[in-house]
């Protein structure tokens, strides 16, 4: 019994409640005429869309920089990369890889600056990263208007300049990952193999990285900066590396998101993206200073499952659109729970 109790405590009540809530939604789905195969397909798809954002949280949490509320900085770099890819007219898998490649230098530059800044404000990273992210999105909005993009698919038709709010990637690299080896069962269920393989690859690389010398040093910095310094690790350098990595993953994440979602969303769109990723990793069982690959997978799956299932099931059941409210309350409730928990002593 005591063992069960500690197990429950380790897993955390919010996660258990959300898990059972999700299971209940799946059970209820057929009764309110929501197709369960389509729903499961959606959950997999959205898991793939968002998992990289969640993965991007890991390095900074591990390095002791807290939750990356400034993930939008990475998203901006990714948006730059993907718009450039379309500007140069890259198609298919080359288009997607091009988007990632173009965004890499921006992500590294932005991440480096952002990391330098966060090194100056240790202990206050979370609030500051949030506002740095907001400010970055707004500054970039000005640039979306004035950057000299010319592709007719992206600029406003009547003015001939300034990027549109949403740009379709159809005809360029729509669903290139999703459709790679996709498994189609019946008319409604599609398993996005390529997308999930890509996520798995990224997660594996991250797992591997965390076990390299740099990765271990990073974790050491996060667990005990003084000890890390005493053993000759440059704390600031490790933190910067973690921020650059997180920012780069944010950029990759938005490219994956776009190819599946079908649109590049500019201007204010990245403002709230970090919050979903933060909520997801916390649902997955990460705390403000500890996160693992398992947390990423569980969290992204539970959170996206919740986002997919609540609207369809609750709305069909109650004939209202109350699900948006549920989403707001649940995702922010989870973040709140994690922030107010006393930091547990590492076992």
């Amino acid at each position, binding site marked *: 019994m005591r063992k069960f109790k500690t197990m429950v405590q380790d897993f955390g009540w919010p996660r258990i409640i959300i898990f059972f809530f999700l299971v209940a939604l799946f059970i209820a789905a057929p009764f309110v005429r929501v197709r369960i195969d389509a729903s499961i397909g959606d959950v997999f798809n959205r898991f793939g869309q968002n998992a990289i954002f969640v993965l991007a949280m890991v390095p900074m949490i591990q390095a002791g920089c807290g939750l990356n*509320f400034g993930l939008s900085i990475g998203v901006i770099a990714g948006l730059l990369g993907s718009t450039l890819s379309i500007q140069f007219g890259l198609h298919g898998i080359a288009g997607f890889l091009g988007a990632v490649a173009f965004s890499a230098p921006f992500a590294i530059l932005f991440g480096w600056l952002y990391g330098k*800044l966060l090194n*100056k*404000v*240790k*202990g*206050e990273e*979370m*609030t*500051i990263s*949030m*506002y*740095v992210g*907001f*400010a970055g999105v*707004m*500054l970039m*909005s*000005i640039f979306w*208007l*004035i950057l000299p993009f010319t592709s007719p698919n992206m600029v406003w038709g009547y003015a001939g300049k*300034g990027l549109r709010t949403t740009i379709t990637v159809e005809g360029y690299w729509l669903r290139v990952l999703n459709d790679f080896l996709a498994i189609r069962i019946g008319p409604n269920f599609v398993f996005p193999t390529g997308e999930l393989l890509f996520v798995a690859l990224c997660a594996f690389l991250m797992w591997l990285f965390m076990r390299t010398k740099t990765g271990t040093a990073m974790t050491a910095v996060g667990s005990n900066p003084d000890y890390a310094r005493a053993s000759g690790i440059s704390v600031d350098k490790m933190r910067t590396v973690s921020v650059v990595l997180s920012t780069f993953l944010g950029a990759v994440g938005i490219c994956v998101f776009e190819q599946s979602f079908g649109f590049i969303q500019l*201007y204010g769109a990245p403002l709230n993206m970090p*919050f979903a990723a933060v909520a997801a990793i916390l649902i997955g069982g990460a705390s403000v200073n500890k996160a693992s690959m398992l947390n990423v997978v569980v969290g992204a799956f539970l959170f996206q499952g919740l986002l997919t299932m609540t609207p369809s099931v609750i709305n069909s059941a109650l004939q*209202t659109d*109350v699900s*948006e*409210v*549920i*989403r*707001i*309350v649940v995702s*922010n*409730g989870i*973040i*709140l729970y994690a*922030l*107010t*928990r*006393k930091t547990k002593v590492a076992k």
Partner: protein
Amino acid sequence: MSGKKSFGRFFSENAVVIIFLLITVACIKPSGLSLTYIGQEMLTRLGRDSFLVLALLLPIYAGMGLNFGMTLGAMSGQIGLILAMNWNLRGVDGLIFAVLAGTPISVLMGYICGVVLNKAKGREMVTGYILAFFINGVYQFIVLYMMGVAVPIKNPAILLSRGYGIRNTLNLEGVRQSLDNLGMIHLGPFALPMATYAVIAVLCVFIVWFKRTKLGQDMRAVGYDMAVAEAAGVPVNRTRVLAIIISTVLACFGQIIFLQNMGNFATYNAHDQTSFFAIAAILVGGASVKRATIPNVFIGVVLLHVLFIVSPLAGQNLFGSAMIGEYFRQFIGYGVIALSLVLYAWRNRKEIERRREGFRGGTAGAAAAPAEGVGK
């Protein structure tokens, strides 16, 4: 040498205000607006926003940083106004009713916020921010689904056509500017809403008086050092909760004043930007996370709003696009908050490093970090 140093110090302590002043002044000319127009707008907005910004002061005294949870108070005020509209109360009566209805809700909200923030000591700001999101969900649930079902709403004009839930935009015709018009004085080209100013003045007096009471002194002690205050017998948690409750109640009043001036409000979004504007304003006015004064509030409101008035037009005239000005002003708002938080945290760290150097006796530390500018 010393003159140069004190100038540097003055600049670093007031960097935000100075930078902001320069940007604002630079934007006035290209906006093409007359100084009379800007002056009138400024006077109006001073009445509209000052109360909300003043609500931020007490938590700063209590060392809890910028109270992002003030949004909770704003939501309480909006519920008060919705109820006033429901009973078709007009004029100042309607406002007083909204205040009376909003106060108990905001006290409860403030209590919740205070308790939550006590569990998140050291990261109050980000927690308050997320708490505001969380309660926003609850607010939407109540206003969009419960009003007209669990909360009886008699006035069909404010109800959605489906029979429950409040309309997206609420027209406050009955109470529009009723406080502002109460003692409006026309002075040359300017109209001064004296009653609103009087309310703000009363609040300022209250704050000055409050700082001298036992509770106010306790708050300062808690803000200075929680451990010392605890040792001296100050009930730390209780004091912090009280600071937040008062701030939330003031934010509730502030939002009512704000909305009566605006004349209508977006039921589900009006509170989204409340804390953003108020916090940007107090920071622009030269406050920091730990230190804020009443002058900071007024300087901030004036500077921020002058920029907000001129920037869209300046953007239009300089770049040929009003959107650029609009994005620019949002960038400035967020950027100012980021910048002053960074400056504050950075200064704090310097201070800690300096102290640590002191422990080392200045020998080991001298090699590790250049001591220039850190020493006295």
